[in-house]
C-alpha cells in the first residue's frame, strides 16, 4: 500500500497508524520487490522536523501521537474519528505547505563527558578496532558538532549524528542487560546518551553527569529535535562535582 507523491511515501503501519517516509527527492523504483528505505540525510530529516512542527502548530483533530525518526514520521490516529485514507489526504495538504514552515533556531548544547574507565568500558576496544589511541578516540568524538535527528527509544534519548567516519563502529553482538543512566554510546554512525538505566547494545565510551530527562524541568528533555550537540571531555573529579550540582 505504499504510494508515492509530494516527496513523501505513505505506508500503513497498523490499523491506527501510518508512516510517512521522506525519500529526499530520489525517484524510487517501485518495481523493485523490496521498497527502498529512505537514506538518512539532513534534508530528509528537515522535512520530518517541518512536518512535525506543522502538525504541532496546527494539530489535526483525531491525530493522537507522532513518532519522528531519521527520515520518517509515524502518525497515530483515532480510528473511530479518522480513516487511513482521510489521514493521508490531510497529511498531503500539510506536506504541500512544508516550504513555508520556519524551524526554530537550533540551540547548541554542551554535554560534559568523562571518557573511559568504569564510565566507558568499551573505549579501549573501540580504539583498538580503529587502530587509534584512546586519546584520539576522545579527541575525535568531542571534535564534532552533532545534530539531534530525533528523540526516541525511551524518554529523552537523542539520536545524534553523524559520527566521524573513522569512528563508525558496529553495535555489540549481544546487548548489555543494563546500561547506566548518562552513559555515552556509539553505534554505526550514531552517538547518544542513555537517559535511564536500560538494556542497550551501543558501545559505551563515557558518561555524563547531566540528567538527560527530568520530570521537573521545563521541556523535560535536555535535548530537543534539531539541537546541535558538542561533547566536552571532563575528568572524574569534575564529573563528581557536576553530579552533585
Amino acid at each position: 500500500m505504499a504510494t508515492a507523491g509530494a516527496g513523501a511515501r505513505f505506508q500503513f503501519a497498523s490499523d491506527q497508524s501510518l508512516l510517512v517516509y521522506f525519500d529526499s527527492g530520489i525517484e524510487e523504483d517501485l518495481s523493485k520487490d523490496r521498497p527502498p528505505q529512505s537514506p538518512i540525510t539532513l534534508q530528509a530529516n528537515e522535512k520530518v522536523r517541518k512536518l512535525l512542527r506543522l502538525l504541532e502548530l496546527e494539530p489535526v483533530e483525531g491525530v493522537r501521537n507522532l513518532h519522528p525518526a531519521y527520515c520518517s514520521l509515524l502518525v497515530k490516529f483515532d480510528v473511530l474519528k479518522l480513516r487511513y485514507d482521510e489521514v493521508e489526504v490531510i497529511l498531503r495538504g500539510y506536506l504541500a505547505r512544508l516550504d513555508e514552515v520556519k524551524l526554530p533556531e537550533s540551540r547548541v548544547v554542551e554535554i560534559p563527558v568523562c571518557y573511559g574507565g568504569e564510565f566507558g568500558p568499551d573505549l579501549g576496544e573501540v580504539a583498538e578496532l580503529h587502530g587509534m589511541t584512546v586519546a584520539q578516540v576522545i579527541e575525535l568524538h568531542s571534535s564534532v558538532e552533532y545534530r539531534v535527528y530525533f528523540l526516541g527509544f525511551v524518554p529523552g534519548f537523542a539520536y545524534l549524528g553523524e559520527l566521524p567516519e573513522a569512528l563508525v563502529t558496529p553495535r555489540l553482538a549481544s546487548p548489555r542487560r543494563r546500561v547506566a543512566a548518562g552513559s555515552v554510546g556509539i553505534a554505526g554512525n550514531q552517538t547518544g546518551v542513555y537517559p535511564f538505566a536500560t538494556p542497550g547494545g551501543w558501545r559505551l565510551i563515557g558518561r555524563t553527569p547531566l540528567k538527560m530527562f527530568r520530570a521537573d524541568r521545563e521541556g523535560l528533555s535536555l535535548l530537543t529535535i534539531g539541537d546541535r550537540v558538542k561533547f566536552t571531555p571532563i575528568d572524574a573529579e569534575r564529573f563528581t562535582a557536576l553530579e552533585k550540582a
Partner: protein
Amino acid sequence: MSVIEVQSPGLLTTVQDLGREGFGPLGVSASGAADGVALRIGNRLVGNAEGAAGLEMTLLGGAFGFTDGAVFALTGSDFGATLEGSPVEIWRAVEAKPGQVLRLGPTRTGARCYLCVQGGIEVKEFLGSASTHLLSGLGGYAGRALKKGDLLKTGPAKNSFRARRLAPTAGERLAPRKVLRVTPGPQSDWFSEAAQQIFYSSTYRVAEESNRMGIRLEGAEVPAPSSGEMISEGVALGAVQVPEGGKPIILFVEQQTTGGYPKIANVISADFHSLGQLRPRDEIRFERIELDAARALLIKQEELLASEDLLV
C-alpha cells in the same frame, strides 16, 4: 477522600489509567493499562469515568486495606480474591466496610487483574496521566510499583453504590483471545513467502522475560529479511518485530517509541487487551486480516463498551 493501605503489594502492582498520548516527540510512550478493556469496565462498574486510575496487578495479587471503606470492582483475570475471608466475584461492584481487607492470590486465568475503586486512585499526574512508566520511573505512585505500607488516596465518590455486574454475553464477546488478529506490518513485504508461512502457521509460546515493554515469543524462527539493516523509525503499539535470530517480539504499552527491526505484522487494536492477559508459557497464534476488517472489529468493540447493555 479515603485511603487504601497496601498491606502486601503482590508481584508487580502499579497505578494505571488509559495512558498518555502525544509525547512521542520526546520519546515517551503512552504506557497505561495493559488490559484497557478490563480497566474501563472496572471503572464503569464503580461509577467512575472509564479512564480513572486503578491498580494493575500482575500474576500474583496483593492485600489492600480499605481504611475508610470503599466501593470497588475487580476485573480482568481471576486472582482468587477474598474480602475478610469471603470470596469476591470478579466483574462486579462490591462494597467494603471500613477496615475490611481485600486479599488476592495467584492468577487462575490470565496475567492481570485490575482493582478499580469508586473515586479512582489519586496520584500526581505526569504529562496528563496517572499511569506508571516503570522503565523511566515516571508517573503513577512515585514512579514505581507499589510497596508494602504505601497509602493510596482515592478521589471523591460521585455515585451511590449500585450492585452491578458485567453482562455475561458482553463478557464472552470481550474474552481475551489466544489467536491474535494482525494486519501486515510496514516491512511485511521484506519477508519471504516462506518466512510469512512460518509466522502465520506456527504456534508461539510467551517467554518468561516478557513485560509491559514487549512480549517475547519462542517457537519457530522467522527467517529475517536477507539484505541489510533498516533505518530506525517510529513503531506502533502491537508491532510484531523480528530481530536477528527470528524470535518475534510484540511491542507493548511501555514500548520503545522507535526501533530498527523489521515488522512483519501488527496486532489489531481490538485485540490489544488480549495481549495484556498473556502469561509466560501461554501459546498463541497469529491470524492475518485486512485493515477494513480490523477497523470494523474495533468499532464493534467500542459500541459494546459504550452500550447500556454492558452492565446488568
